[in-house]
């Protein structure tokens, strides 16, 4: 019986969460649609959430591109297909690693920051103060953060793509003696413009996930400083899980399991 009770409770909580999240998303989008946007704040958030994440995104994608090249180049040369390494690195970077890595890193840094900031605004009554002044938190706080991530995450993903390809190229040259020219021509042959744009579509979706989950977690914070901690952890965990799930779904939809 206890098991059923727990299961029932869990199910209800899940739907409450999903409902609340949807409501916040709708409200936020309706303000965006009505162009009720705080421009200066949005620019500031682009800087805080986007520009300030650049270094950490560059570092993680550089080393991931390098390690991918390290593993694949030696194997490829052994089987006599060293000319394909560039394509392999670029293919995975642009389609999967660039958008995914930048999103996961940003979820950890920015999703946590959004949840912590909004959460502490809840417990210091600043959210209620906004409401009492006739200001909707969705418009005042969520819209700028959502727009900032929708703009900045794709840009970060492009940086991630480029840096991981360059890192891979350097390692391929150093360890497997694959020349830069061979590497780059393989890159050009393998990926096209639409691979890049489809990768960016993913980034936009991930940006929406990070901003909405971070905001929602923050806004539903209860119970003092400990509550802020829980909200922050939850924001990171939930958004990373959703990023992985939606990445699969998006890959399936965008690439349809095709090989080309």
């Amino acid at each position, binding site marked *: 019986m206890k098991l059923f009770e727990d299961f029932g409770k869990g199910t209800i909580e899940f739907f409450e969460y999903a409902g609340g999240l949807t409501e916040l998303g709708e409200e936020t989008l309706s303000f965006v649609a009505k162009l009720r946007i705080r421009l200066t704040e949005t620019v500031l958030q682009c800087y805080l959430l986007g520009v300030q994440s650049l270094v950490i995104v560059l570092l993680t994608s550089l080393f991931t591109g390098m390690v991918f090249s390290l593993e694949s180049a030696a194997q490829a040369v052994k089987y006599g297909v060293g000319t394909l390494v560039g394509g392999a690195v670029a293919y995975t970077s642009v389609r999967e690693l660039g958008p995914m890595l930048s999103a996961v890193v940003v979820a950890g840094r920015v999703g946590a920051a959004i949840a912590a900031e909004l959460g502490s*605004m809840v417990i*210091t*009554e*600043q959210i*209620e*103060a*906004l*409401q*009492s*002044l*006739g*200001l*909707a938190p969705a418009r005042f706080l969520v819209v700028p953060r959502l727009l900032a991530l929708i703009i900045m995450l794709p840009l970060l993903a492009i940086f991630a793509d480029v840096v991981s390809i360059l890192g891979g190229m350097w390692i391929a040259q150093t360890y497997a003696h694959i020349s830069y020219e061979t590497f780059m021509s393989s890159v050009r042959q393998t990926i096209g413009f639409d691979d890049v744009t489809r990768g960016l579509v993913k980034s936009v979706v991930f940006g929406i996930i990070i901003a909405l989950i971070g905001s929602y977690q923050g806004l539903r914070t209860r119970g003092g400083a400990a509550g802020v901690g829980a909200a922050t952890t939850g924001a990171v965990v939930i958004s990373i899980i959703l990023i992985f799930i939606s990445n699969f779904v998006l890959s399936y939809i965008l690439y349809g399991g095709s090989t080309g």
Partner: protein
Amino acid sequence: MTDLRPLEDAQDGDTGQDDRLIARVDNVTMRYGDKIVLEDCSLDVVKGAITCVIGLSGAGKSTILRLLNGLRRPERGHVYVKGFDICHMPERELIDFRSAIGFAFQFAALLDSMTVGENVALPLHEHTRMSAEEIGETAEATLDSVGLENTYNMFPSELSGGMLKRAGFARAVVTNPDIVLYDEPTTGLDPIITNLLTDTIKHLRTKLNGTAVVISHDLHSIYMMADYIAMLYEGAIIAYGPTDEIRRSTNPIVQQFLQGSEVGPIPV
């Protein structure tokens, strides 16, 4: 004004359309989780008067203020403000409705990402068509009126507790709302500032013919400003009336509270 007895005159289910009332909490039950905070609680707010709500810590006083501007919705009962039943108003309408009600929070609740001046100017930016210059001047003047000269460009973290409170107070009244809700406006402040704020609350009421609901523990300032006193005890208003009447009340709970006595029906 002392012959008004709104609580007795008004009938249950009255929508607060009574000309003398600006707001009415009607048989409200309110709980957090399993804990019942208000039970069949009713309170009338007389237009143009200052109503002070007194009661023990944790009695639910702040909850009543939040009901009055729709920050909380009751489980049962109704809250009427200016003739509207705000319990059933969608959040989107409530947001606009609230801009005509000032709320001075207990711990000020200034937005810490903005300067003190920007905090006070915020409602003007959002709800008026004033020019940036006028907004700045109005915000500055309002800060001056609560004794906060030269704080416009400071951040909330640079202010003392008492100064913060006055800044929150300035933000609540800057748009000249017709109802202002004050949550413990003088708690923790020195006697001089307490008097200053008590005078400001009275002044605002006279100037705008506005209404104020004030939660306070400070009997001295209550006696100075209150037209009506309501005492909240165990989830309901157990005594309500003009200030003099409440001071002379024979209700042992009220007397014990006003005397600050350890002896009486209130368990210590």
